[in-house]
């Protein structure tokens, strides 16, 4: 893959926060249209990696490029879903309005009505299967319903790259599967590059083109068959993990003891 055609290119990049290197010497390339899983233990710097690609966190060394150009804040080519708590229950704005902000929320000036934009928003809401509750206030929705709305918000601007920080968090098993397939579908149909942070890799395992793993101050990149293995994952998480193959050929990752911290802290 030539550097010019890559969606993400890091060259000996480092991020320093509070006088401490989160990770350093990160060199990797992600091809356009690839579906990338970003894995690693809590506090390793996965969210920081996405923020660095968004230009929200400055590099302390090295270079980072997105679609061949240096990272910059406000790049409309990127759709972002941050890792988050739920919205405040008393936040009074409709879910559909939140999706709409993903389309033109950053533009100055007096808003004018636009049929095209309205139908684009409605289409995205329908795509993520959220039409039934899109007219309700976002704070009233369940965690999983909010997550679908946020995925629609990330998609609505027609981004060429999606940076999704634990989008499957707070979804039930069925919805994890459905949303993963949805994201994969968009990625395939429109050539969108996806970097998806996940703690539970099983729902996305069938789609992964590439794995980026963040651990111990390093960011490494590999093919799923190299990384999704008992020995590699065990080393990566510093805890016993086993990769099994089911009778129908699918891989399943199981933690031999579930670290208590996984979903309890989130932030």
């Amino acid at each position: 893959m030539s550097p010019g055609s890559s969606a993400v290119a890091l060259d000996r990049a480092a991020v320093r926060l509070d006088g401490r290197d989160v990770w350093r010497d990160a060199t990797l390339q992600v091809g356009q249209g690839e579906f990338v899983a970003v894995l690693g233990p809590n506090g390793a710097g996965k969210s920081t990696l996405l923020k660095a690609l968004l230009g929200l966190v400055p590099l302390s060394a090295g270079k980072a490029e997105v679609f061949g150009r240096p990272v910059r804040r406000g790049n409309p080519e990127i759709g972002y879903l941050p890792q988050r708590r739920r919205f405040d229950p008393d936040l009074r704005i409709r879910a559909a309005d939140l999706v709409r902000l993903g389309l033109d929320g950053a533009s100055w000036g007096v808003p004018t009505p636009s049929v095209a934009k309205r139908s684009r928003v409605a289409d995205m809401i329908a795509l993520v299967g959220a039409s039934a509750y899109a007219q309700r206030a976002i704070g009233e929705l369940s965690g999983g319903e909010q997550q679908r709305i946020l995925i629609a918000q990330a998609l609505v601007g027609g981004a060429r790259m999606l940076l999704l920080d634990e989008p499957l968090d707070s979804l039930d098993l069925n919805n994890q599967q459905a949303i993963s397939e949805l994201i994969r579908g968009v990625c395939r149909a429109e050539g969108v590059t996806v970097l998806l942070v996940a703690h539970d890799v099983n729902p996305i395992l069938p789609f992964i083109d590439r794995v980026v793993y963040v651990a111990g101050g390093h960011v490494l990149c590999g093919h799923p068959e190299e990384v999704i293995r008992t020995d590699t994952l065990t080393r990566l998480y510093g805890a016993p993990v086993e990769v099994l193959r089911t009778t129908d050929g699918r891989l399943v990752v199981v933690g031999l003891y579930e670290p208590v911290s996984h979903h309890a802290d989130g932030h």
Partner: protein
Amino acid sequence: MLGGLLDFHFMQNAYLAGTLVALLAGGAGYFVVLRGQSFAAHMLSQVGFPGAAAAVLLGFSPVLGLVAFCVAAALAIAWMGRDVEAGSRVESAAVGTILAFSLGLGLLFYHLYVGSAHGMFALLFGSVLGIGDRDVALTFAVVVASAAALAWAGRPLVFASVDPDVAEARGVPVRTLSAGFLLVLALAVAVTVQIVGTLLVFALLVAPGATALQLTARPLLGLAVSVALALAVTWLGLALAYFSDYPIGFLITSLAFGLYALVRASRAVRSWA
């Protein structure tokens, strides 16, 4: 029944100034409530009191002191809350300490002031029936400028208010907007305090927005409802004050509170039923 209401020049001025103040307070108030910054707005409206008192003491026009203190307080909260979201705990704590200090200053200036207490009373409760043509002109200029700024920055401001992380990633200058909003609010509060008083500005700045947000979760509609409610309680309050002889401040705050209480009660009944 409305006979005679607008016959006098002072009532015409009161309606003009009241309308302008209500337009701005209703519009800005929607954002205040959406952003969870009611306490900051409360502080800004109170800070006018020591500001004006200081100016009077030093022999300047009160409006200069109002503007200087409000702007300084807005910049102080913007700076102290620069790393946190609007309406956060850190911001509330900063607002609280500034508020306490400024009221202390107000007490000092009042203590040092040897003139009549009437001017101080007007600052707290307004002197809406004594508004001159120059006051109306100044209010008009500030309201037009602030409303234009809010209209122009309204959409990114909503984005930054409800979803700051994504807004920032999409290139919205979240912190600058936050400081800018406080600054517009400070200017607006400063010019309106001298007309309707500290208490009235605050009632018009929070109650209509809070009521509107209870009624609808649509941003544009909410903004419109907030402005309409602010206008309605101001007009009605002025008319009642003219015909009844009760203080205008009491009437407007009661109307604003009554509407809010009614809407909260009806929502509570609906969700309970």
